[in-house]
Structure formats: C-alpha cells, structure tokens
C-alpha cells in the first residue's frame, strides 16, 4: 500500500477505468501538492475528463485509490459520495442552473446562514460585484464563466477541478480570462487541477503539466521540462511544433545533414532529434553551399514559419523573424542554434 506523502493534497494512485469493455483510464497516478496548479493535457478522448470526474466522485474507478487531504475517498471498498468530497468543479459548459439567478447559483453550495455574505464576497473576488439578481442567460460568456468559478469557490472547497473551463469562450476573451483566473487562484492559494486540450493553456496555467495519451499519463513535469525534455516523440509533437530529424548520435552530439546538434542525453547510433522550429536559423543562399530548399512560407505576423526540405526530402521547420522573407524554391542553409535537444533512438530499417 502506497503511503501518501504528507505534502500532497490530492493523491491518485493506479486508477483504471473502462466503459463497456473499452479501457478509458489505465493505471494513472498523480499527486497534487497544497496550493499547486496542475494541468491535465491531452487530445480529446484521451480520458482526461474522465480522470477529473473520477477525482470528483462523479464516476467510479474500477481500480486504484484516491486520497483527498490524506483521507481515502475511493478504492479498496471505500467510497465517499461526491456530495461529501468538498471539491469544487467548473464544468466545460459551466452548467449554471438556468432557472436560478446569480446569487442563488453562487450560494447553492453555501450553508443558508452565511449565504448572502459569502455570495457577495465571492462575486467581489471574481470581479462581478452587484450581479446577484441577474439570470444566467442575460450574462455574457465571460461573465457566465466567472459565475461558474464563483459558484465552485463559494463553498470553500479543498481543491478545485476545472474541465476545459475556457473552451467555450472566443479566443480574444480566452487569454484575458485565463490570466485573471490564474491570478485569482494564486492569490487564494487554491489547489487546482485543469483539464485542457490546448497546450498553450496547459503550459501557462500549470505549475506542473501531466500529459495524457490514450488513457495513460505519459509524462508529468514542469512546463519547461515537458517542452524541452519530452518523454517521447509523441509528447514532443503534441506540446509544440517540432521536426523529428534523423541524425547519427555520438555521445552528446548528433550529426545531421545540416550540421551537428547538441543533445540532452548521451546516445549512440541512429536517432531522431526533436528540433523545435525556433532553434533553427536559416542562412540565405550567399554563394556558399546551401543544402536545403524552401517548400513553404507562412507569414504569421511577429514571425514566420518556413518549411525546408533536404536533398533527401526530409522536412525541417524553422521559425524566422517576421522581417525575413522566403519564396518557395529558395536555396537555404539551416543552422541549429538552440539549447541541447531531446533525441530518441531510431528503429533501424531492415
């Protein structure tokens, strides 16, 4: 039996779950410390929402245990109903009660005596003072989002679970609300688990990021770790644009057809190096010996994304400054200019 470390407020151990024979969650473990914010990142259908619902008690896991502030709430015959777990949850569609006004929505989980006072305080906190008597349908998306957050916070839960809380907002609004929510949770010292499929959101919001794929947690780490030291090629590609470039490793250096690339770990033999576009510089044809040809050029404002191909047809992405311009057919020489990169052993073709 795993001993729960005293630092973790929420502890998920070896949880598995299947629906009608299909495995949705397989052997997931996750510890969340007091006041920590963890993003659960994965493509849609990877089981991240189910894991969140298992933590809340809205689904039952087939195997595994869950502890909340040291108390076991699920597993080995223990079962604490969601009503009694004291975790707050913000739903993807916010799930505001359409027939109740803002104050009755926010006050729903607060004991009657303290209701009015707590509602006012929480609305102040989420920057919606004086909105008590509005009905949900009269609010904008951003306001509804904040009411949902206030409703989850008002009963002062032990931890907050957020299921894609920003996906229903339009992109212009999303960034502002995201920043606001992060600051709010920071100041209240709330422990939170976010589910998201948006890698930028996951990196911005999480103290740590847990990456999920097909029901498994494939990597847990700080946002920088996940980005710079992905556990496998899939994570490398999922977390940001990357080219998996073939090279030959010799210790901490890999030799590719456009020069050498420093490696994080020591490797020998054929590898694939996870090359981030921003780590590649393109030198235009200045009469030297250009190796690559420009295939595609996408202007994106502050910078541009360039796809170049080696003589062997291997593609490489490069992010260049917005002031640089290329035309398909241009001959260029890529140069690796970034920090040591992650590499993965390349299966040798028979």
């Amino acid at each position: 039996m795993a001993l729960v470390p005293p630092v973790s407020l929420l502890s998920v151990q070896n949880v598995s779950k299947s629906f009608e024979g299909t495995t949705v969650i397989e052997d997931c473990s996750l510890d969340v410390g007091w006041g920590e914010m963890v993003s659960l990142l994965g493509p849609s259908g990877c089981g991240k929402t189910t894991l969140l619902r298992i933590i809340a008690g809205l689904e039952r896991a087939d195997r595994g245990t869950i502890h909340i502030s040291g108390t076991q709430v699920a597993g080995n015959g223990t079962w604490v109903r969601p009503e009694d777990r004291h975790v707050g949850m913000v739903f993807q569609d916010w799930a505001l009660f359409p027939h109740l006004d803002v104050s009755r929505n926010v006050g729903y989980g607060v004991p009657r005596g303290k209701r009015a006072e707590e509602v006012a305080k929480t609305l102040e906190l989420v920057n919606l003072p004086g909105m008590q008597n509005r009905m949900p349908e009269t609010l904008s998306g951003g306001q509804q989002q904040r009411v949902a957050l206030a409703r989850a916070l008002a009963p002062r839960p032990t931890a907050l679970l957020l299921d894609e809380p920003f996906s229903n907002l339009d992109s212009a609004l999303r960034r502002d609300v995201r920043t606001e929510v992060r600051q709010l949770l920071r100041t209240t010292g709330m422990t939170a688990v976010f589910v998201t499929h948006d890698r930028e959101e996951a990196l911005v919001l999480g103290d740590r990021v847990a990456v999920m794929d097909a029901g498994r947690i494939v990597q847990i780490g700080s946002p920088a770790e996940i980005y710079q030291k992905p556990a496998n090629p899939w994570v490398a590609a999922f977390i940001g644009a990357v080219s998996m470039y073939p090279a030959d490793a010799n210790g901490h250096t890999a030799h590719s057809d456009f020069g050498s690339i420093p490696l994080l770990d020591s490797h020998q033999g054929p590898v694939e190096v996870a090359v981030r576009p921003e780590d590649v510089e393109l030198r235009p044809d200045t009469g030297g010996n250009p190796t690559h040809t420009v295939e595609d050029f996408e202007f994106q404002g502050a910078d541009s994304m360039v796809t170049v191909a080696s003589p062997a047809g291997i593609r490489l992405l490069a992010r260049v400054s917005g002031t640089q311009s290329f035309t398909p057919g241009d001959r260029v020489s890529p140069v690796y200019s970034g920090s040591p990169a992650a590499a993965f052993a390349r299966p040798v073709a028979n």
Partner: protein
Amino acid sequence: MRSTAFRSPVLLKVVAIVVTAAFAFPAGYLVWRNFTFHSDPLGVLFSQRTQGPLLRTLWLAVLVSTSTAVFGTALAWLTTRCDVPLKRMWQALLPLPLVFPTFIGAAALIRTLNPGGLLSDWLDNLGLVWDVEVRGLFGAWLALTLFTYPYVYLPVAARLRRLPGSAEETARLLGDSPLNIIRRVVLPQTATAISAGTLLVFLYAISDFGAVQLMRYDTLSRAIYTTRLNNQTVSMALSVILLVLAAAVVLVERGVTRRFEHAAPVRSRRPVIYRLGRAKPIAVAFLVGAVALALLGPMASLADWTIDGIRLEASGGRDLLVGWDDVWSPTWHTAYGSVLAAVVSVAVVLPAAYLVVRYRSRIGTVANAVIVSAFALPGILIGLALLFWTLKTDIGSHLRNTLVLLVFAYIVRFGGQTMRTSQVAVAAVSSRLTDAARTMGASWLRRFRSLELPLMAPGLLAGGGLVMLSVMKELPITLLIAPFDFPTLTTKAFNSIEEAFVAEAGIWSGLLVLLSGVMTWFFIVRRAEHFD
C-alpha cells in the same frame, strides 16, 4: 455525457415495475377472463354476429383515416405554405374542433344537418328542401372526420413550417414545376407526420364510442356496449377482437415510425410560400367551409338548443331540468377527476421516464412500451374489463363504483400521453447540472427539489395537460364505471342527448366545450406554436 456509471436506483425500478403491471392489468384481465369464461373469441370471430361489427369498424376506420389524411394535410398545406389571407386566424381556429367530444359533435351534426335542423330551417326560408339524413356510416364518418382531423393537421402543419426552403428552392432551380416539387420534395419529407397522424386517427376511429353510438352505426365498441349486460360472452369475445385490432395498429405504428426515423427534423429560417393565384378564392372557401362545419356549426347548434330551452321555459313551457345550482357539481367532478388523473399520471410515469432517459435501463424500455401501448386500448375495453373485475372478484368488488377505480382507468387510458413529454422533460435536465450540484454537496432530495423539478415543470405540465383534456372528454369509461354520485359533464351531456332533452344537452355540452376549449388552447395550440 456518460451516465451509465451508476446503476439505476432499486426503488425507481420497483415503482416502474408496479406501474407497468398496473397499466397492463385491464388488457391482461380481459384476455385471461376470456379463457376462464370459455367465451371462444375464435368461434365468435367467424359468426355472423361478429363479422358485421368487425367489418364495419374496419370500414369506418379506413374511410375516416383516408379522409382525415387528405383533409388535414390540405388544411395544413394551405395555412402554412400558401398565400391565404388571415393565416394566423386559421392556424388558431383549425385545431379547435378537438374540443368537441365526438358524441357532442355527432349530436350537433344530427341536429344541424338533418331535416328539421338548423340547416333545413334556413333552407326552408329560402324555399329549398333538404332531406339528406345524417345517420349510420355516413354520419359516423362525417363526425369522426370533422372532429379528429386536427390529429393530422397539427403534426403536418408543424412539419411543413419547419421544412427548410432550400430543398424546394433547389428543385425549382433544377427546373421542376411547383406541383412536381410538392409531389417529389415536400410530400416525401412530410410522410412521417402524415402517417403518424393518420394512424392516430385510425386508432381513434376503431375505439370511438360516442359518434357511432349517436349515429347508430354498429361497430365493435358499440356492439360491446350493447351486449355487455345480457350477453357477456359475446361482449368479452368482441372485446378481445377489438384488443387485437388495437394491438395490430400499435405494431404498424412502431414499424412506420422506425422506418421513417432517418427523416431528420430540420429547423428552417423561412419556408417557401406558394402563390395560389386564381385558386385563392376556392382555397378560402374551403377553409371557411371547414371551420363552419367543424367548429362554428356545432357551436351555433349548442347555443341554439340552450337558448331555445331557456326561451321555452320563460314563455311558460317545459321547465328546464337544470337549475343554476345543479351546474356546479358535474363541472366540479369533471375538473376534479381530470386534474387528479393528470397529476397522478405524471407522477407514476415519471419513474419509467427516468429509467429510459437517465439510466437506459431495460426495465425502463419495457415499462415505456407497455405504458405507451396502453394508450391504444379503447376506453370501452378498459371500462368493461374493470367493470367485470369489480363484479366478478372479491378484491375488485371493494373498488366497485369508486373514484379510485375511475381515476385508475383514466390513467391507464391516457397516462401514456405523458410518457413522451416526461422523457423530453427528463432529458432537458442536463446531467452536468446535477453533477455540479453534487460537487457542491446537495443531497438527492435537494437536487430533485431545487433543480430537476423546476426544470422539468413545463414539460410535465404539458403532459398533464394532455391527460386532463382527454379525461374531460372521455365517455365510455365514465359511463361504465363512474360512481353513481359522481356525474360529470360528459355523462350529463350524453344522457341528455340520448333522452332528447335538447336544452339540457346544450347546457352541459356548452360547459364541457368551454372548459376543454380553454385547456386545448392552453396546452395544444400554445404548445404547437412553441414547436416552431
């Protein structure tokens, strides 16, 4: 999204099983009684005695459903898709004939159209002679067509209003003529609504008692009624035959709705409006005729009877058998019985609706099938089964002539109407909402009281309203098993008509039509508009 994680509560299942058994009881008793009675339905089936009523029932139902399909669809087409004037007024008036129980409608037709009635009086003044007898098959057909066409009109009009204009516009651009577009594009997409409405009318026609009784057309239900006292064996056998017929209609209905299920409901911005051109006066005359025959005529004759009676009394003729004090108790009984049946129907059907929608339980599926099918049971069968049950068994005898038994019969007959609306109501409460409430510590009871009930209320009210309206107009069950001290507006009106107390018939019918008119407007017309 996924609600299968938690198994359905045992209590819910137990309630659903008990309710299902109760809904199946009258039909089950009827079948069982036949075996123990040795009534030999197969033998009776081939006797002269049965074949007549059976063939007449089928013939009438076929005629009525054909005519309502054409009539209802035409009216729906004209009022939703053509440039007739006063569209909103027609749309408000055309569903209203539903307020007439068929026996009142039939009585009104007899009094209005037969020699000596309003029409012939009026024609006499013009020096014309009118001697068409509205009786028998023709009378029953006319009455049922005029007072049941809204069952076709309402769904077809709703469908036509929602059909996207783009398909018709595309056909137009591809070079099709308007008539061809109707045939090739519009009708196929409306077929589900037409066939569903028509089957409902067919079912109505085979189970109708009021119109055939007044028109003296001997269908199964009338034969069952007349033989119930002095020839129970025949009555029982006829009942089983009618039961099988109703069951067959239900099976066909299942097949039809399944086949057309892929016709996806589409929401349109603007339906295409067809110009009638020179045919417009004919169309308007058709609408005026329909409203005059099915609505204004019957209303006028009810008023005429009442006024005649009051005038006669005032001029020292026969005294009215109805004083102002007598009016209240039947009105109260009608209101009380129908509200009670509606409320209990909603309450007992709700657990099954939960099982179907929330838990997708097999018990729920069975309960749903039984409860909905019970709606096909002709009232005369339920009344008869329960009447015999109270006469022949000890347990039943305690319930003889009680309000409990009457309300139970109403619920079996009409409770199925609340199933669909209840399911929609349950589905309308997103499980996210109750999940959210759970994470905030709300107990089962609090979630039901503060979230589910208020959110389901409009749907439950609509379902209850349908039951209330149906119970108000119900005749055969009320005639057979209502307590003696519980006269309702229908029994009062029916007895007055049968005994030719014209003025009294006018008063009772008028009250009933008024009451059910308010209900129809509230629950059907208003709801139909909501569907848009």
